[in-house]
């Protein structure tokens, strides 16, 4: 029962990681770039949300409804002002530019919010749980998981069924050819990053409700998102979701073996996947 409980808690944790990973999978799939500030943006949005809750008295759902558009706007701005200049075959400029921005952002948050860890009050929902047979499941983690599933499904459908999704996939396959049929790559890229960071609005709200955030946490979120994407397999939306589940389960089980081993277990599974199945568990669909 101990282990089954571990798996269940892992899947629930994976729901949060999936919300980190979706945007990263989308951005890498479309532009082949990694935004090193990915995790810092989660923290930034979470801190903005907590401040909004404290200053304007917003409830958690109102915070969520505010953070998603703020995230989308930040993403759009990030792409327009910065990333569009560094998209290209050479990974160095985008990596270094966002690396520098990440250091600046972390320290700017430190100046504004101090190093304290903070969290967002959920109005009692944090304590609520339901029992599934002998296992107790928190209501909030369940909501996070459902939300992650809907986001993944929604993003997948958007990619497959909409005009915008088709232009994204076309730009991802051959950006110059996409431009030749009328797709404006800069707009497509800006929209992709807006969606990616908009999804981080969900991640930020739930992260702040489920546990705590502090300005220096970003790199961990970045690494978890990255591990989920690689475990699942590059370029696949549902792959990122599944990778997040595997990462969550690995950490939860590792944590039960020894509290100091939880995060490390996730890293080891990631390295094992690279060794055994470098294309990820779920290959990109043809």
């Amino acid at each position: 029962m101990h282990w089954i409980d571990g798996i269940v808690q892992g899947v629930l944790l994976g729901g949060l990681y999936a919300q980190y990973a979706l945007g990263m999978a989308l951005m890498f799939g479309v532009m082949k770039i990694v935004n090193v500030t990915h995790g810092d943006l989660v923290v930034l949005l979470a801190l903005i949300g907590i401040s909004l809750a404290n200053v304007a008295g917003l409830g958690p759902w109102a915070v969520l409804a505010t953070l998603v558009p703020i995230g989308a706007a930040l993403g759009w701005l990030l792409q327009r002002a910065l990333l569009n200049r560094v998209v290209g075959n050479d990974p160095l400029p985008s990596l270094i530019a966002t690396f520098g921005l990440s250091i600046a952002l972390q320290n700017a948050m430190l100046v504004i919010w101090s190093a304290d860890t903070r969290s967002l009050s959920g109005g009692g929902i944090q304590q609520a749980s339901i029992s599934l047979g002998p296992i107790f499941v928190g209501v909030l983690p369940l909501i996070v998981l459902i939300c992650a599933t809907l986001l993944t499904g929604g993003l997948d459908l958007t990619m497959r069924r909409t005009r915008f999704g088709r232009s994204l996939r076309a730009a991802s396959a051959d950006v110059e050819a996409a431009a030749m049929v009328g797709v404006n790559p800069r707009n497509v890229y800006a929209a992709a990053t807006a969606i990616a960071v908009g999804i981080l609005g969900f991640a930020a709200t739930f992260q702040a409700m489920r546990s705590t955030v502090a300005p220096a946490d970003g790199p961990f979120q970045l690494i978890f998102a990255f591990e989920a994407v690689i475990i699942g397999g590059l370029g696949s939306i549902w792959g990122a979701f599944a990778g997040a589940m595997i990462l969550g389960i690995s950490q939860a089980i590792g944590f039960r073996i020894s509290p100091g081993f939880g995060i490390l277990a996730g890293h080891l599974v990631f390295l094992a996947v690279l060794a055994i199945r470098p294309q990820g568990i779920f290959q990109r669909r043809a």
Partner: protein
Amino acid sequence: MSKYRVARMTLSGRVALVLFTAALVGICAMPWWASQGLIRDVVTLACYIAVAQMWNMLAGYGGVVSVGQQAFVGVAAYAMFVLAQTFGVNPFLAVFLSLLAPAILAVPIYGLLHRLEGAYFAIGTWVVAEALRLVATNMPMLNGGAGMSLRVMTQFSAHERAVASSLLAAALLLVTLGGSYLLLRSRYGIALTAMRDNPVAAASQGVDVGRLRLLIFIATAVGTGFAGAVYFMAQLRITPPSAFDANWANLAIFIVMVGGIGSLEGVIIGAVIYFFADRWFGEYGASYLIVLGLLTLVCALYFRGGIWGLWSKWVEAPWFPTRRRLIRLDGDKA
């Protein structure tokens, strides 16, 4: 028929070589002329230059971007502590023996991560460094999160320690800067420069890009580890967060990007700037780091060659000339 000779040395290069040699001699002789504080500063600066130059070789020439070089700093430093403190090996000897650890570790790390594309490789190195930090934290042999002290150093006098630190700092600079310079001037240098400028074209000209990248990954791991062992020998104490501190990657990237990627001169300029910036503005903590981060960003966006790149546009006087020039021997001006 004119006769030609291939020349690489320039006047500025000769002057720089003399200065570099003089600086190394001066560093070796530090115990007899410098204060304890100055020796410590020079050791620190030498470590910055070494770590940055290794990142520069990796990213600037090898085309391999890593943000997890602290993995090798920590592994070599811990290996040195274990050899010297736990097994009683002479610490000076232990510094060199400990370099086996990053060399051995670099092979599987590269083997695993090279399957990831460009930017993902870089994040992968970060994961490895994090994993190693957690391993160190969980290892009883390394005293876990509490860290280790190099108590064996107390058997040496202050003067003996100063001599060791000074010689190691000089050796570190000789190996990382001098070694890079010799490598770039060798036949591998041509291949490396070709690979930096265009990996696909280099591959088509018979350069084994994959093998060369593995070799440079191992070599830079050793150089980075050397800096780690020297740095923590001077610190006398090591903990997992300090050994595997992401700041090692931060400072390497800042130094190389601001100084000028793909040049040895840029690394020296960048390291000196970082060293003094850290001294003078370090007390401002976060605000200072915001500026460092933004400077790195601006260099990546607008000044890819950094300060040295801007300077070279005005003055053609390389300190470490690696380019080959054709010189006509018979003096025929026609």
